[in-house]
């Protein structure tokens, strides 16, 4: 059980995705605590750069080249290649890993789900923290939209853990880079592949919110798409990303990729600055674990006033620019 694997995901530039650096840091600490080993696995059409990045966090990395990943969805390829590696290593407890960790983003979830049924292993999802106790990982997670925190463990067998962004701060191993083994499996695919016909970058695609340290977010109170100009300006001066409520997304003021809440994304930034957001439960579940919540709202009785750290009762179109001016003069 004490041998851990980390699945490294590729970022948009071909290097290691930030979430994978965090997962690797977490896994290395667990392996230290368990007195076990930790290995990284990167699967891709060109995994070399990401594998080299991962080797700055882990003592051993396996780079799996599969050229089909260039124009096919990654999850089925990665799940199948990793399942084969586990079998080749002798299976769980016989040289193979007892636990596999991966990020909880879209690709990580897809791989974890497929790998679970291929290996017959359980999955613990959305870990906000993992410790090693009694010979296995104990996983803390937030469920029912943050209304409960549970700790869970595997029932004696091996398992897969998906890890949320921000569970730990990424930190290199500090020593010499780990070894990298490169392999190029030739086994015919068993899982059906999904072709990627095109990768489309949309104009105005905003900074991703899941890993942002600061999020400035807008809701119905912005009154229209122009209100997001102010949100964007505040995000720029704070070095943060722009978020939104479902109402603002449904109204077409901003893209769904920025939506925070029950059917959008769950975030845990250091600062969540909410403009014109009432704080309905569907939004609250996506942001209530932010370290600091500051809200600007005209209505002192809005639900957000009950769980924000600081609430300004006032007109966001007056208070917002005033905050912007003070922040700009500070940083300028």
């Amino acid at each position, binding site marked *: 059980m004490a041998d851990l694997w980390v699945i490294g995901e590729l970022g948009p530039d071909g290097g290691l995705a930030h979430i994978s650096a965090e997962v690797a840091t977490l896994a290395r600490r667990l392996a230290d605590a368990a007195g076990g080993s930790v290995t990284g696995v990167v699967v891709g059409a060109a995994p070399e750069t990401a594998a080299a990045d991962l080797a700055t966090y882990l003592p051993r990395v396996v780079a799996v080249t599969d050229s089909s990943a260039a124009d096919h969805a990654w999850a089925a390829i990665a799940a199948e290649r990793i399942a084969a590696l586990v079998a080749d290593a002798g299976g769980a407890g016989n040289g193979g890993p007892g636990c596999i960790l991966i990020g909880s983003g879209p690709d990580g979830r897809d791989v974890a789900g497929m790998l679970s049924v291929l290996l017959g292993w359980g999955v613990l999802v959305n870990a906000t923290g993992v410790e090693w106790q009694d010979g296995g990982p104990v996983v803390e997670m937030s469920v029912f939209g*943050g209304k409960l925190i549970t700790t869970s*463990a595997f029932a004696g067998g091996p398992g897969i853990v998906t890890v949320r962004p921000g569970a730990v701060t990424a930190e290199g191993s500090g020593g010499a880079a780990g070894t990298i083994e490169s392999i190029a499996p030739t086994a015919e695919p068993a899982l059906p*592949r999904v072709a990627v016909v095109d990768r489309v970058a949309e104009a105005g695609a905003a900074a991703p919110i899941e890993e942002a340290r600061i999020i400035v977010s807008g809701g119905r109170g912005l009154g229209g798409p122009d209100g997001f100009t102010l949100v964007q300006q505040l995000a720029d001066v704070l070095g943060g990303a722009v978020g939104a409520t479902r109402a603002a997304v449904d109204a077409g003021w901003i893209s769904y990729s920025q939506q925070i809440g*029950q059917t959008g994304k769950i975030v845990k930034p250091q600062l969540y600055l909410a403009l014109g957001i009432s704080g309905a439960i569907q939004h609250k579940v996506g942001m209530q674990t932010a370290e600091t919540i500051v809200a600007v709202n005209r209505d002192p009785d809005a639900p957000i006033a009950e769980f924000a750290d*600081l609430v300004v009762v006032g007109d966001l179109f007056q208070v917002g620019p005033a905050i912007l001016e003070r922040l700009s003069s500070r940083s300028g």
Partner: protein
Amino acid sequence: MVLVKPVPDPAAAAERLGPDGRLDRAASPAVVNANDEYALEAALKLVAEHGGDVTLLSMAAGSAPETMRKALAMGADRGVHVMDPALAGSDTLSTARVLAAALRDIQADLILAGADTSDGGGGVVAPGVAALLGVPYLSYASKIEPDPVAGTVRVRRISPTGYDLLEAPMPALIGCTQALGEPRYPSLKGIMAARSKEIATRTLADLGLADGSVGGSAATTRVVDSRKPPARAATRVVRGTPDEAAAEVVAFLAERRII
């Protein structure tokens, strides 16, 4: 074919776990999982355009037909409810195995599922079902375009910078997001019609799974402990002129070393 899950109503805020670490379903009213409603809406639009019908599939406790009726009222044609006492305490692996077994008996061109659920929210069941069935999995869909002549389906998968255009042969399983469009409200006519629509019940024996391979006894994970998150500190309320308020906000952020 749409996979739907009854989840505790997030607005009721009554979720709690029983002594066995399982959800106390009696304590919290159930609703259709929100992302599943987007999947159903997408299915209803596809059927309106291309023909065919929509079947719902749920693996859930005995009260599931009540929540399924609401989905039937939106326009689905029939439901299949997998229910068995042995399923209490199922993990995601069991759930994927049971849904896949139920789907093997049903001829569907497209299987639609919500990207994740509002209770556990792992998003791992649908890809597991696809892998067990050996069908392509197209996830995080913001648009679904089947080509019945070619027998393929194209899906826009939301990416960090825009979208990836995916294509695969049908049958396929699609993970659905809110970007597919607002779910319709059931009409009065729909609500009346839903009362007489068929909800077939399947047990584990019906699915050939009554061998202990799934369900609570086969669970691979266990809840060790649960607790309420720590309460947040009291809210500081700021009034005053915009400039005074802004000064206070900036000082607060500096005090917390955020800026």
